């Protein structure tokens, strides 16, 4: 028997570059309290907890155990899931499976990161093979840069196209999202004039790393209906963690893992025409360049047609398919929370609770996660249990 699962609550911290007022447990507690408040629940209603982050950013081992003072996990079932950049979406999916299994009715999922505690690129670089790859200390930026160079060559996309994505997401954050880390209004010219980080990616094309936490509450159908009038039903989940060695060749101009994960999630949800069926999307775009290139992997446009959607304003607020009303990852990136923020923001859109970020009448939403070694997670959410 398939048990339907919905999102019933969502909370987040005010994200920033360095949060000196809170330690990690306190950051977590803020997000948890806000998620509980949003669903009018207390910790007594929570049956199980899933938590995730990336160990080397804070250097705390056994975070599931360490976190209980902030997570409310004292004398509760709690487990940790971590998959790198996809951690946030992976814990979201783990929360879904907790509730879908029938073992737990109401599940609290927490993603967090206090990136100011470490050197982010140094910590990321240890993900590579210690013998053949680690010496390059590639971090996350270089491979994304190589990908956009290949895409520009193949399809005639430009650096300005990427700048348009940066403008869209930064300005959405500045206009609509009080929780965002970077709330600055930028122009294409600002982006183009910002310093190169790794050609063709410039400073304003790249996501920051943030201190912050996010909590999302999942509930099995019967419980979900009692908690809120309109849960955000999880209609589809998919994930694909396919690549291990950079030297194997990233499907350079595209993102094969995203295509595969989307296929899984769309099949489960019954999404046939993504661009038409989705009303809003919260995409894990670590660099503006990916905002141009990855829409095709999601089936939102044909191969090489990403720049057209961006130039035409189709993904802006008020466009046919608004992408990242929250400002997305370019504005806010507490890494272990980032993928979960996408799910939480997408859920609030279809629940009609996105406030200033709200896309009017949004019913079906897409959320993605990215990380690991060009890995992808995809989630489909809807205000109805079946797609029209």
């Amino acid at each position: 028997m398939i048990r339907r699962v919905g999102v019933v609550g969502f909370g987040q911290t005010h994200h920033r570059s360095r949060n000196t007022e809170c330690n990690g447990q306190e950051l977590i507690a803020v997000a948890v309290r806000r998620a509980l408040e949003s669903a009018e629940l207390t910790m007594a209603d929570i049956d199980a907890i899933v938590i995730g982050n990336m160990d080397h950013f804070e250097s705390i081992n056994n975070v599931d155990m360490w976190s209980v003072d902030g997570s409310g996990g004292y004398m509760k079932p709690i487990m940790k899931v971590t998959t790198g950049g996809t951690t946030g979406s992976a814990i979201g999916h783990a929360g879904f499976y907790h509730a879908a299994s029938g073992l737990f009715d109401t599940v609290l999922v927490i993603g967090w990161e206090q990136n100011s505690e470490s050197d982010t690129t140094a910590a990321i670089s240890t993900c590579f093979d210690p013998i053949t790859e680690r010496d390059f200390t590639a971090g996350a930026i270089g491979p994304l840069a190589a990908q956009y160079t290949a895409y520009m060559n193949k399809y005639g996309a430009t650096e300005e196209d990427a700048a348009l994505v940066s403008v869209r997401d930064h300005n959405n954050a500045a206009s609509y999202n009080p929780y965002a880390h970077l709330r600055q209004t930028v122009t294409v010219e600002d982006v183009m004039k910002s310093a190169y980080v790794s050609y063709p990616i410039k400073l304003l094309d790249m996501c920051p790393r943030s201190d912050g936490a996010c909590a999302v509450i999942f509930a099995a159908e019967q419980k979900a209906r009692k908690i809120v009038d309109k849960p955000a039903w999880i209609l589809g989940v998919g994930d694909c963690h396919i690549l291990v060695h950079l030297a194997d060749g990233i499907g350079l101009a595209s993102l094969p893992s995203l295509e595969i994960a989307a296929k899984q999630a769309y099949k489960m949800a019954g999404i046939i025409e993504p661009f038409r069926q989705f009303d809003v999307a919260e995409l894990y775009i670590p660099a503006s360049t990916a905002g141009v290139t990855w829409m095709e992997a999601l089936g939102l446009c044909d191969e090489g047609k990403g720049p057209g959607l961006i130039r035409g304003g189709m993904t802006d607020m008020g466009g046919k398919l608004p992408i990242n009303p929250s400002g997305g990852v370019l504005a806010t990136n507490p890494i272990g929370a980032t993928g979960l923020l996408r799910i939480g923001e997408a859920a609030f859109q279809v629940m009609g609770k996105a406030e200033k970020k709200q896309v009017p009448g949004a019913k079906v939403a897409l959320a993605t996660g990215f990380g690991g070694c060009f890995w992808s997670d995809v989630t489909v959410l809807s205000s109805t249990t079946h797609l029209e």
Partner: protein
Amino acid sequence: MDRVAIVGVAQTKYQSYNPASHAELSYEVTRDALEDAGMTIEDVDNTVTVCNDFWDGRTISSMAITEATGSHRVPTTNVEGDGTYGALMGLMRILSGHHRVTLVVAQSKASEGIPSVITNAMFDPLYERMLGIDAVSSAALQMRQYMSKYGVTEEQCARVSVKNHRNARNNPYAHLPLDISVEDVLRSRILADPIKLLDASPVSDGACAIVMADESVAKKRGKRAVWIEGVGHCADAYHLGDRDLGESPALEAAARRAYGMAGVSDPMKDIDVAELYDAFSYMELMWMEGLGFCHQGEAGAVIDRGVTEMKGRLPVNPSGGVLSAHAVQVAGLARIAEAVLQLRGEAGARQVDGAKMALAHGIEGACGQGHCVFVLGR
């Protein structure tokens, strides 16, 4: 709960140093568990890996074994914690109805790290870590509290070590099969008073994999399918000072949940064999109490009476337990694998005759802050 079975298990031999890479260890158990299940990788529709960035010295440590476990081709996730938690995640994926066959793989190469530094990192970075406290010294506090609260003696704890190392002589996978006496344990080098060398588990390199399947797939495996009857997990408070270290309320809660699902009312009577996470000798005694095999403080007397010996009423750790092979993260999954072999009647020289219901247990964090309990049946 819908019925889910474990249809394949595999372990490497555990040893202090294995030159194989993380991926090679993982591949070995993936291949062997699938063979044990009579399956190929094509039959697996999702995977769960169990990797820890600290122990593996690598961020996104699951990347290292993605290919070796076939995880690049199906939905996958990585649980960071004891292997029992990985098995629980795998179980939930099947129970959701969205997956039918889950491969769970845990691996560890502690030989590449410094255990005291790694386990020091689970303590509070501001208030506790600079004390140098680690898994061994925190366990010493717990052993002292447990002994002083209930009058359990160092000899009784030593008896656990003697029993388990002796049992390990029947286990071809064990790292430390030993023929030792209580005297040997008591005279062994003190690591952190009152824990002596032979009260402590080694750290081992090794891996374990299990294949789980839904009822329709598992039924085709006939008697080799071992059913998951119940599961529970729970966490206690974080700071050692917030806990009574002589008690394990989180284990009691986890066991209560697992027993409720499995219909276990009298654990000592209903369960035929138990594989417990005895990272230190005293832990086996404490966990027996938490699991309701005896009342609080009585486990010392229980071991004195030989109840948990191979020929006793409730053999505990016929495999030699964690004291005889401790690949961190792997060890709880290995408890499940051993319980499966017992229920299949395939445990060789360590077989408990006629075992019909088995318990497997894992711990997480310092001094068993978290526990995960599986009840398995034939």
